């Protein structure tokens, strides 16, 4: 059996630090993204994601550490880095007084795309984001969702080595999000490495080859989606009991229980084995100790659970155009 050759790294970050005055936004981050991967960078607001991206796309000068993109040092060869990357920004960055077509044309010219290629790609993208009938409308007359779709179309205009997508599908309806995922996969299959930040955990789960979770300026864990889920144990059991504090202490003594933490009105229990086999033992032990159970739910760990477990925070969706807000998990770290 032949061994698969190790893919070469296309993004490397070593010991990156960045501070805004006294506030350290990034505190010694290191990561490697391999060529052809979809890499997701997850973290709550203020975790340092945008600072890392801004440093990688050369909008911020490095204060400490080293980073390379597409083989070029971001400090020494920023121009070469810029020639290798495309970006979809989190914020709406459209000229209100240019039409949809002009926005795409301007962007294509910024990247020196040949005229024919530019025009063909614009037509293709107008169909993809369903803005063909708006092509001559100024962007100030578009709805929030349409603006977002246009931003994505703009980011997908070029076929570069690395595409940075900063919360690309924020504010989009589910159907459009799925179409975008398909297109992102297509772009990725054509050879573009994707560096994605998102607060939609299902998006990270569906698209990513590798995921890093960042919080307080540091990477907490990196792995594939299944590796990250496995760190939480095989199954997740949610219980609401008459005495959650006592139940947590009790369950932590069970060998089949990996961890038990308080969440909302109940307890989140991660287990080492098949949850269906562990659950009867848990119920029995709680009853033996006079703790009654009001609610039971058993499920496989999701990326949401992974995120909540490692950051102690939960992301809820906000209205279109806004960032996710964070809710501290009761009893979370």
């Amino acid at each position, binding site marked *: 059996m032949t061994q698969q050759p190790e893919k070469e790294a296309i993004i490397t970050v070593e010991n990156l630090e960045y501070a805004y005055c006294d506030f350290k936004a990034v505190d010694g981050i290191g990561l490697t993204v391999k060529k052809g991967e979809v890499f997701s960078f997850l973290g709550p607001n203020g975790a340092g994601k945008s600072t890392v991206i801004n440093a990688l796309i050369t*909008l911020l000068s490095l204060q400490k550490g080293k980073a390379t993109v597409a083989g070029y040092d971001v400090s020494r060869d920023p121009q070469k880095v810029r020639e290798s990357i495309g970006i979809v*920004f989190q914020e709406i*960055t459209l*000229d209100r007084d240019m039409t949809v077509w002009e926005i795409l044309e*301007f962007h294509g*010219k*910024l990247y*020196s795309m040949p005229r024919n290629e530019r025009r063909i790609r614009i037509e293709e993208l107008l169909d993809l984001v369903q803005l063909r009938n708006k092509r001559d409308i100024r962007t100030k007359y578009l709805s929030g969702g349409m603006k977002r779709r246009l931003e994505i179309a703009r980011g997908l205009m070029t076929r570069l080595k690395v595409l940075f997508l900063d919360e690309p599908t924020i504010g989009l309806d589910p159907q459009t999000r799925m179409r975008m995922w398909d297109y992102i996969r297509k772009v990725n299959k054509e050879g573009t490495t994707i560096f994605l930040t998102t607060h939609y955990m299902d998006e990270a789960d569906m698209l990513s080859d590798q995921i890093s979770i960042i919080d307080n300026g540091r990477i907490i864990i990196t792995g594939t989606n299944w590796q990250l889920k496995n760190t939480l144990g095989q199954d997740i059991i949610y219980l609401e009991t008459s005495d959650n504090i006592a139940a947590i202490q009790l369950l932590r003594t069970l060998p089949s229980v990996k961890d038990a933490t308080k969440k909302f009105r109940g307890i989140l229990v991660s287990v080492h084995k098949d949850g269906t086999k562990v659950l009867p033992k848990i119920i029995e032990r709680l009853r033996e100790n006079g703790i009654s159970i009001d609610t039971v739910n058993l499920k496989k760990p999701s990326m949401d659970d992974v995120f909540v477990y490692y950051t102690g925070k939960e992301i809820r969706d906000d209205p279109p155009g806004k960032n996710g807000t964070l809710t501290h998990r009761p009893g979370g770290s």
Partner: protein
Amino acid sequence: MNYGFANIYWRDMIRFVRFRTMLISSLLQPALWLAFFGIAMSSSFDSLMSGVPVPPGAHAVGYLTFMAAGIIAMTTLFTSLFGGMIILFDKNWGLMREILASPMPRDHVILGIGLSGVTKSFIQATIIMVFGILIGVGFFVGFSAAEIALAVAGILIFVAVFALGFLFLSAGIAISMETPEGMQGIITLLTMPIFFASNALYPLDAFPAFLKVLSTYNPMTLLINGIRYFAIGDDFVAIGKHYVYTTGDIVFSFAGLVVFALVMYGFARWRFSKAVVT
């Protein structure tokens, strides 16, 4: 070769044409200056100076003709200093992130804005000249068609270099500023001394010595020298003063403007290299 500057130019001209209020006001403002200030002042000055003898070889011009060159320069100054404002808006609205993160060399932003600013100044200067002649400005008197074409070309070249200098300065300020109010304050601060310490409205002879030196090398004065040379001639009398421009004077004025534009380009490049837009 990268033609990114042409892309920046294209976008800025789209905006110029679409902002009808800005377009119309920028074209009307110099005409109004000429019509109200020029005509009012020329009535007073011309009656005061009517008895001043004209040396042989020279010709007398009215105040309206004298100050028309100043109005072209003033309009170009204002337009150019405000020309960089788009960069500040782009910076604040996030558009500059798209541009700075693209492979287009950053100095093309400066060049593109410079080019569109020069185009706007050309349009304004042409309108002032045409409107001025209609209301009695004595430009190109006795010139043949070929001489007029040459003179207009000369004026526009002077206007272009002067405009570029102030557009580069404006771009450099814009990329360094955070708010439009701050930029507006700096522009106002710059405009007053540049305009009034020049020969736009009056001769420099009566200035105190230090101000006279400053005014002689003021880019505004250098531009006005060029405009008057090409539009009025090299030997004329206006508001009681005999003006004689030699070829050397005009070459000096032009060289001064070129140096000014190059220094301002260096300033803008330096500011862009330090720009942090997040």
